[in-house]
């Protein structure tokens, strides 16, 4: 039915299967949209947030998706600026995942603010001293960059590509993509860092507060570094899941191996610095303010030392060791385990830097505050996941996301002539370069 829209030389599932998948994810999406409308029309009393938990599940989700979405800027930096040309085979998918992550983050932010209609005040009445202002500006600009990076991919759809204007636009955008990749890396450095700064500048909260360099607390640099380190792991994890769902190999091993190795070394260096930061905070910063580690990790039912172990060792050291070791990295089971642990580790780091910050009592006579999100918060957090799956489904079906797919999955049961006939090629146009 939609064969004219499907990229040439590849096979896609039957329409009914595609629509069934869309329907299931659409139902989840509708559930999230319903919860979102409840929050917008009835207010944030629909959540379980409170005056101790002004930041909660949504802010964690924001920080987490932006961290794992860091694969887009870092892969772009590696391919276009550093010159790792093999990554051109996965850069499309990294951009798509980044686009999903950042659009999700913006959507969640739009739900999270108490007066959504005043959201523009952050630009209009901007306080240049606030980390959140920097986040808002850089996040919006980088989302625009990701959109610019995603547009040529859309224009490569078989039918759109037949329109000369779109074909040439796509071609020219590809030609200038290095500029956008550099811009994206620059913007990402600042907004990823500023998100780290959001917690690090809180000098009223010793659990979060960090010293730093000039106006930037150490968390500024740690967040940028960790996004660059774990982002590619997330890209590879989603690629692996996509391969399992489609039952096809979509990216060659050498590409996966290269990105996994880079991610591994980035995680390795990050986790060393993270351990140094944690040690300084635990043994100098916090005691200097009269607090000890025990104040932060005991006296409540949830936040124990386990979380420190899970974040740094399980989610940092273990995936780093697996990914920098060639024999382990080349075994898919080990490699995927490392990706999962890494994504868990960076997500846990964001959780700690948002929710544990809120939970820890500061005044000696105050108590720990624990919180369980409401179903509306959960639904609106799952909403972007459903949206992301739908966008991946549509993009995978109709766009040439994986340049190596045709080569890796030759169509056996159709003659080359039949495939060629289906493509309705336009010989006067040169194919756009990915």
């Amino acid at each position: 039915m939609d064969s004219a829209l499907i990229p040439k030389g590849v096979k896609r599932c039957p329409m009914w299967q595609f629509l069934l998948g869309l329907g299931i994810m659409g139902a989840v999406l509708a559930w999230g949209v319903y919860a979102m409308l409840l929050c917008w029309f009835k207010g944030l009393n629909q959540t379980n947030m409170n005056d101790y938990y002004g930041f909660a599940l949504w802010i964690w989700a924001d920080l987490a998706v932006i961290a794992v979405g860091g694969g887009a800027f870092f892969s772009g930096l590696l391919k276009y600026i550093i010159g790792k040309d093999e990554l051109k085979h996965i850069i499309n998918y990294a951009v798509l995942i980044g686009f999903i992550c950042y659009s999700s983050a913006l959507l969640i932010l739009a739900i999270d603010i108490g007066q959504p209609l005043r959201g523009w005040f952050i630009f209009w009445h901007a306080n240049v001293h606030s980390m959140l202002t920097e986040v808002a500006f850089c996040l919006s600009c980088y989302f625009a960059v990701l959109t610019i990076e995603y547009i040529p991919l859309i224009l490569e759809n078989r039918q759109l590509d037949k329109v000369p204007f779109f074909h040439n636009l796509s071609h020219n955008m590809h030609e200038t993509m290095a500029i956008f990749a550099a811009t994206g890396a620059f913007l990402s450095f600042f907004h990823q860092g500023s998100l780290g700064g959001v917690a690090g500048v809180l000098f009223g909260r010793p659990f979060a507060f960090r010293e730093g360099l000039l106006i930037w607390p150490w968390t500024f640099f740690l967040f940028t570094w960790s996004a660059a380190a774990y982002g590619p792991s997330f890209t590879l994890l989603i690629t692996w899941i996509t391969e399992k769902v489609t039952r096809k190999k979509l990216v060659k091993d050498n590409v996966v191996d290269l990105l996994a190795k880079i991610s591994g070394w980035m995680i390795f260096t990050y986790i060393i610095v993270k351990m140094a930061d944690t040690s300084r905070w635990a043994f100098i910063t916090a005691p200097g303010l009269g607090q000890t580690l025990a104040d932060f990790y005991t006296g409540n039912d949830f936040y124990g030392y386990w979380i420190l172990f899970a974040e740094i060792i399980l989610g940092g050291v273990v995936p780093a060791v697996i990914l920098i070791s060639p024999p382990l990295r080349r075994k898919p089971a080990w490699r995927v385990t490392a990706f999962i642990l890494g994504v868990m580790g960076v997500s846990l780091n964001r959780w700690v830097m948002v929710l544990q910050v809120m939970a820890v009592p500061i005044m000696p006579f105050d108590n720990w505050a624990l919180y369980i999100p409401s179903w509306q918060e959960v639904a609106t957090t799952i909403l972007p996941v459903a949206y992301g799956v739908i966008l991946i489904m549509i993009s995978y079906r109709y766009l040439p996301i994986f340049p190596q797919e045709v080569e890796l999955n030759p169509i056996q049961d159709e003659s080359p002539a039949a495939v060629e006939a289906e493509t309705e090629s336009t010989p006067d146009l040169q194919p756009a370069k990915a």
Partner: protein
Amino acid sequence: MKNEHNDNPPVMKFGMAIDLDKCTGCGACMVACMSENNIPFKEDESDKLVSITWMRIFKLSNGKSFPDTDICYLPRPCQHCEGHGGHSPCVSVCPATATDYSRETGIVSQIVTRCFGCRYCMGACPYHARYFNWWDPVWPDGMEKYLSPNVSPRMRGVVEKCSFCFHRYQLAKNKAYLDGERRVPEEAYQTACTQACPAGAIVFGDLNNPEHQVHQIVKPDPKHGGRSQNPRAFRLLERLGTNTKVYYLSSREWVRRSGDNYLEHEKTGQASQPHH
């Protein structure tokens, strides 16, 4: 003002001294504050995590059993932190400049019509002095006629907090101008909680003005970030460098120690190195 047109306006620093040895925990200050500032309330106010109390009383205990047990009530308004040069925890983080530090009065303001409800300031405040309007205010029938005309009620989705009854300062300032006074007289500007306290535990005034009672009690040391020179006085979480303008007084050592975090071997009143 009328008499001294060319002089710069005096730099004031309004603050409080709360004598915890006098406070009985009666809650009159909380009630007066809510009434004065049109603070909304719900039918069930038992969940203090979603209850707006600009002035909140905490109950402290020395943790000992009878007969050594001792308690103390600690009223906690916004501490109006100055931080280092006006860099208070909440003001510095607000992305929309919806909260500001006044160098004229030392009061941390909240511009509720500019706040878009991101709640970053709430996360930044270690005193939990900031409150979010999770609901639109609903007043019992007829009660809207008793609201103060000097304070705008706030809508759902914005943050609010104690303003040191700033509207009273504005009224007093206008009156002082008309009366030809250069400064707002001490008795002309008092917060609602101060006036309501039956025990006289709260003293309010200009910490910069040696004639004001609060200055005489606190004896702030400007060379050491406003630290009190009164041995009975302390500030909440002073070690964080928040540089607050609410001082507490107590002759009980355990009460003074409850005002901050200390390592076991540290003495009460131990200072920390400034970190920002």
